[in-house]
């Protein structure tokens, strides 16, 4: 595939992601931080995000399965997840975390369980999308092109 074409499809894809709210302006910021001295910045951050979030989600599942649910712990985990997702620009995950947090404050177990499912869903979605986007990036780089800078759409 031609570099231009690849770049175009990258842009289109990214636009869709922004429009659908999967990503927000923060992700663009991340892209801007990537330069010659730091060529894999975005990949590194995204990978770290995946690791972190996976672990958090597992912990959350375990904690919610307990007999006596420790809401404080849940709150702490959710806080972390919210922080990470907002740092990377994963908007829908962040919003889901906020909702989760509300239920946690109310100590509503049912609501929390539902929210957990929602967060997991969103996470998986954004994970697959990000992976796809990063694959496109790699292809562009491999073909010798420059990654187009995403401007703010939101």
């Amino acid at each position, binding site marked *: 595939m031609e570099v231009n074409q690849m770049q175009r499809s990258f842009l289109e894809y990214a636009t869709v992601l922004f429009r659908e709210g999967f990503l927000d302006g923060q992700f663009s*910021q991340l892209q801007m931080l990537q330069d010659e001295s730091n060529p894999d910045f975005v990949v590194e*951050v995204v990978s770290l995000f995946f690791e972190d979030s996976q672990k958090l989600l597992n912990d959350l599942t375990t904690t919610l399965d307990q007999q006596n649910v420790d809401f404080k712990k849940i709150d*702490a985990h959710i*806080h972390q997840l919210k922080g*990470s997702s907002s*740092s*990377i620009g994963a908007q829908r995950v962040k919003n889901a975390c906020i909702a989760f947090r509300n239920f946690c404050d109310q100590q509503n177990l049912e609501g929390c369980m539902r929210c957990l499912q929602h967060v997991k869903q969103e996470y998986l979605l954004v994970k697959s999308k990000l992976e796809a986007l990063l694959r496109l990036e790699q292809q562009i780089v491999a073909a010798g092109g420059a990654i187009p800078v995403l401007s703010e759409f939101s």
Partner: protein
Amino acid sequence: MELCNCIEPPWPADELLMKYQYISDFFIALAYFSIPLELIYFVKKSAVFPYRWVLVQFGAFIVLCGATHLINLWTFTLHTRTVAVVMTSAKILTAAVSCATALMLVHIIPDLLSVKTREIFLKNKAAELDREMGLIRTQEETGRHVRMLTHEIRSTLDRHTILKTTLVELGSTLGLEECALWMPTRTGLELQLSYTLRHQNPVGFTVPTQLPVINQVFNTNRAVKISPSSPVARLRPTGKYMPGEVVAVRVPLLHLSDFHIHDWPELSTKRYALMVLMLPSDSARQWHVHELELVEVVADQVAVALSHAAILEESMKARDLLMEQNVALDHARREAETAVRARNDFLAVMNHEMRTPMHAIIALSSLLLETDLSPEQRLMVETILKSSNLLATLINDVLDLSRLEDGSLQLEIGTFSLHALFREALNLIRPIASVKKLYITMSLSPDLPQYAIGDEKRLMQIILNVVGNAVKFSKEGGVSVSAFVAKPDSLRDPRTPDFFPIPSDNHFYMRVEVKDTGSGINPQDIPKLFMKFVHSQPHATKNSDGSGLGLAICKRFVNLMEGQLSIESEGLGKGSTAIFIVKLGIPGRSNEPKLSFVHKGTKNQVKPNFSGLKVVLLDDNSVGRMVTKGLLVHIGCDVLAVSSGDECIRVVTHEHKVVFLDVSMPGVDSFEVAVKIQEKFSKRVDRPLIVALTGNNDRMTKENCRRVGMKGVILKPVSLDKMRTALSDILEHGYLVESQ
């Protein structure tokens, strides 16, 4: 005849004569022998007798004489030769001793006589000393009495006690029958009986002061004997009772005003009291000199004590008055403070309460104007908008004015372009002027600097107000505005000789003249222009709007800018000229204020270089940490990222200029970390600047950050630009001016 060694007596033996001679000789001998014995006895008794030798001699003489006479007894009859020899030898011895004694006595008797004269002399002397002792003792007594009296008098500062005690003590010391004190009345023309010793309640007797006897007493400072029948001595009106000898003495009443600073009070004060002392009539006592002296001394002491009491009374009155005044002042101050506080509270509340709806009205009206409206509706909305703008201005003016009067208003100094300011002001006024078909001309002198340092907003307000007034009061013609640098000569306005502006290297005075061809002002009304809420032309209110505050506020602003505002007019119909001079700073000199709201437009958008800037980042969220670190690295910083508070405190060194702390970490008290970091560095210069990163924009978080000494708060998510701006701000100013 028988031969015998007998001697015949020389004379015939007369039986009778011989008998008597015999007896006499015997007694003589007896006496002569007893005298020395007596002498010895008495001399032994007496301790002092300097003439023992004389005594011995005299004794020997007497004894021998006695012996002679004794032996003579045997010679009356026939006696033997032996007796004759003894007799003769005795006589010879006696003769020798008596001659010696006689010779001795010549020396002794004058001495003995002189002893006697010395004795008489000493006796006289002793009598004299006794007399003198008596005198001294009397004086001592007197002195003691006076001291006691003085002590009693001076131990109290109460006037009544002083006087009463005086009378009592005098009475007891001198054994008086009666003692009275006459005090002068307020007018000084009469003396009133104020205190007596025996009379418990003296009736208010008065005697005129001009009586000869009283004058006599007042004219001397000695105690004067007066007649018992004089009016001051007649204390018991119904009495046939006549007191004994009477003495009167004056008691000077000194006043505080008598004590001038540099001279002692001369007793030229006319106020005296009269003290009258009466001896008992039945004792036939006389006034002795020492008693008179005592009375005089007491009178003086009483005068001093009274003056002390008077001074004390006056000072206590003054002190009480002061205290009262203090209390009243304090009360007034508190009231004033309460009033000011109440007004400030009211203003603060009204400020907010009034502005909020005002803004709502203005904002919504403006928005409304942007929608589709029919012409009528548009007109209505425009009127609403104009009116509410006016109202908003009025509210601001009122609030400004009260702050101006408080002195709490401070100019907001900044650098601005003079030309731009004038242009903008005139652009605002031009539409109104053109509607009225008035021209506006502006001429800015070429020696006016391009930029100046001052309060741009308020200067604009002044220009708008002054030029607006000019336009308002002109029906035809126009307004011309000219601004130039004021020269020192032109600065001296003869009307205000107190205004001496002195230009310096850092400042210049700008003079602006606004001439209009309007209705002019009556010169008498000019002062009223600057008064609040006063319209100078009540009949022109149809065209004029405004609260009447404008000029008053402008004047105050101009004063704050160390300048002057004045209006001249030659009279009604002749137009008027408003002139104001303000002090402005010259930019580019060292007087650039540090706390400036730097206009973003005037500075070049140079991307500041942070290469190598050592910073520390604390965030427990790994993703967040990585992102922020990447951001900082991209800007050029040398970042040390940590994930725990303890680690952060440990790794911070004096090389790190900034520390970024995420304050929304649960389980880590970032504020504690901030405090500990600051404690780690004792020297202020080594301390890094601490900045908080948070997702919370609430006031509480900001307050907490400020309290622990953080220099700024950055809201997450952080963009590249935001981080750049924030970092440059904090490095330049030491704190974040604005945080978003």
